């Protein structure tokens, strides 16, 4: 897929665990894992907003477009 999810990088930068982020955002760790692995088909704006708020970052810090 040409959209890369850099959630791992942001989590490492903020020194936050996946489990904690999932708890703050209000999603399951399984869903967060799907998002991190790039298997997700879509991300709700509300989820993206919650992630950005929790990690204090911009959507562009998490999502990146790479040409195939």
């Amino acid at each position, binding site marked *: 897929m040409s959209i890369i999810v850099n959630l791992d990088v942001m989590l490492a930068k903020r020194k936050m665990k996946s489990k904690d982020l999932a708890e703050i955002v209000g*999603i399951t760790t399984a*869903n*967060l894992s*799907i*998002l991190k692995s790039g*298997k*997700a*088909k*879509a*991300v*709700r704006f509300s*989820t993206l907003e919650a992630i950005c708020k929790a990690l204090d970052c911009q959507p562009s810090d998490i999502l990146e477009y790479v040409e195939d």
Partner: protein
Amino acid sequence: MKKVKLLYRLLVFINIMTTILIGVQIVFLVIPDLYHSKIYDENVLGSFNNLILTALLVLIVIGSFKIQQGIKYIIKDGFFNHKSEVKFKLAGKIFIGFAICRIVYIIIVMSDFKLNELINNLILAFIVILVGIGLLVFADFIKNGGVLKEENDLTI
């Protein structure tokens, strides 16, 4: 899901009954006809008439059995699953195949039927074709529903 389970049980009952009836037909009509080479002057197909009718019946029972399996998978894995889609598609094809064979049979033995019987049989065969196409459309619904479900499940 209650109605689906009811339909499943009804199909199981119908399939068992039809299988028993096919067995009875084979034992009491098909085997004696072929074994004794009975002569039926009134039938175009003669002693093979019952054999062909039984073969057609077997075909529709196989189709019905595939529907039963499709419904079983719906009960087991939910409405949108690949196995049900495959079973319904196969059942649809079998039903259409049965109807075409039935129409060919009716055309061959046309002289054996009265006009009203001929019309009734032809209409029934066309209805079976419609049922078959309906099953193919239903299989498509399941397929598209499965894609939507997957996308919904993978939306975080």
